């Protein structure tokens, strides 16, 4: 045994080397560069960089768009936790009920379908849904006699952020639901049966058996949902063409993109990236530790 280990001493590292190189070049090197860039002002199209010290960070603190972005990211997080995590859990629990055994597989696939569709397709589809004159939503409101509620959902600063957030819910509830379905299926059958014999009703079983048993999934899904909320880019970029009207539906990631590639201030964009990194990094570490405790149990 020892002889083998000696002979193949270098082998393990050779196996790992290609992956390590990929990670080093395309993930770790950029993240370090990002910190360095935040002290410079430079253009995407020229190699010269001007050192500006902490100017980017000063601007960041005074930038009202950063605040708007953060507010929208927080809205995203709160609404997504309510709809995706709690909604997903409730839907999963209902689908796993014995009464629905026949239809549950079909409903699962239906609810999951939007998850596999490309985000640009979904956002284009919702520009039709939200279209001011011929949109499905306004036409539907007209149909049920609520025409007064019809409005250009993506065109008003007070509805745009929520209209954008709603699209993400539509797409992602199915994903979180799936995670809960898997978790609920792992609950030992005897637990449920014992509770049933004890006369516990559906609500009682949900709160005293299901909920404690999926606690870990609840933590993990909350964390990935909140992390995802602070990374949102695609939906506002496509639906409101970069966080409009004005900056009402902007998120940090969109602000970063616009700063770097539209206003050509790559250094400042890197500084915004640091904010995103710090927020999501804390959440990521939390998730990793929770995952580990889960594995050990």
């Amino acid at each position, binding site marked *: 045994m020892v002889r*083998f280990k000696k002979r193949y001493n270098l082998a393990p590292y050779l196996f790992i080397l290609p992956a390590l190189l990929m990670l080093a070049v*395309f993930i*770790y090197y950029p993240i370090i560069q990002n910190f360095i860039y935040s002290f410079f002002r430079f253009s995407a199209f020229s190699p010269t960089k001007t050192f500006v010290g902490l100017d980017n960070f000063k601007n960041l603190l005074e930038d009202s768009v950063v605040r708007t972005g953060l507010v929208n990211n927080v809205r995203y997080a709160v609404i997504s936790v309510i709809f995706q995590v709690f909604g997903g859990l409730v839907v999963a629990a209902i689908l796993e009920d014995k009464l629905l055994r026949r239809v549950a597989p079909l409903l699962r696939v239906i*609810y999951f*379908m*939007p998850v596999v569709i*490309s985000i640009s397709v979904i956002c284009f589809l919702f520009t039709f*849904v939200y279209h001011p004159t011929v949109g499905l939503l306004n036409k539907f409101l007209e149909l049920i006699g609520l025409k007064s509620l019809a409005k250009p959902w993506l065109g008003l600063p007070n509805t745009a952020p929520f209209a954008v957030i709603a699209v993400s819910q539509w797409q992602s509830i199915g994903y979180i639901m799936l*995670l809960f379905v898997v978790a609920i299926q792992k609950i030992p059958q005897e637990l449920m049966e014992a509770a049933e014999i004890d006369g516990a009703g559906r609500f009682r079983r949900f709160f005293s058996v299901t909920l404690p048993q999926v606690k870990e999934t609840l933590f993990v899904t909350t964390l*990935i949902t909140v992390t995802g909320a602070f990374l949102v880019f695609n939906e506002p970029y496509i639906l409101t063409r970069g966080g409009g009207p004005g900056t009402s539906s902007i998120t940090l990631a969109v602000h970063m993109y616009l700063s770097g590639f539209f206003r050509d201030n790559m250094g400042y964009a890197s500084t915004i990236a640091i904010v995103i990194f710090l927020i999501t990094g804390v959440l990521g570490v939390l998730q990793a530790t929770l995952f580990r405790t889960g594995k050990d149990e």
Partner: protein
Amino acid sequence: MGRAKAKSKWSNLLCVIVGLFLLAYAVVIVYPLLWMVMSSMKSYNEIYRNVWALPSEWLVSNYVTAWNVGISDYFLNSFLVTGATIVLVLLVGSLAAYGLSQYKSRLIDVLLIVTMGGMMISPQVTLIPLYVLLNEIGVHNTRWALILPYVAFRLPLAILLMRSYFLGVPKELEESARIDGCSPLEVYWRIFVPIGKPIMLTTAMLTAYYAWNEFLFAIIFIDSNKFKTIPSGLMNFRDALRTDWGVLLAGMVIASVPMIILLISLQKHLLRGMSEGAVKG
């Protein structure tokens, strides 16, 4: 007795409410998708005049137009990028997973943390430096500008999944192969790759899902229309079509078909991968 009756009345009512809720939710999901398919065969005027109505004439030609106007190129690019990403993730990832699961040392532990740490870093945060880097190494605006970052960002999860699978491979298999004179590379190729096929399929599905739908890198690392993948190409497609809604919708349907087919045909693997690799794109 009376109480039990009242209770069952309540629970019947509850069943009805829950049933209606499930149905309404299904309609909210399915209707827009069906509307997309239906309207993709209408003309602009017909969509504009009546959004609900079925097409008076089913314009299958919208699909031909969509395909010829640009979707075919985007499709090809998406296939190439997704295919290359899958191959590289499986190859590089399984090698690393093998090394990380079959050997033990302090350094291996550190390397494991370094690999898994990649999961904490989101693509958004590396966007600016990656753009600069890809320009410097001269791959910006080629398909490699997507493939290389995609592989890197998929590797941690792929390695996590494959490593835990490899850890379950019985030690005796490996030892007996080594006694027979197999080199570590042969052990990897003859034992771990065949045994690991299920997890590799899962990983491949997960990678396909990611690479096919990835948007942020796709719009920034590729400028010219002829290298764009479906998610970013659709943006150009929309702008080029302006009001040709039927054709746009046809393009959207074409773009969604491969993933829907994958979901329906390989449901088990895709869903397993997505639940084991609980990380949001």
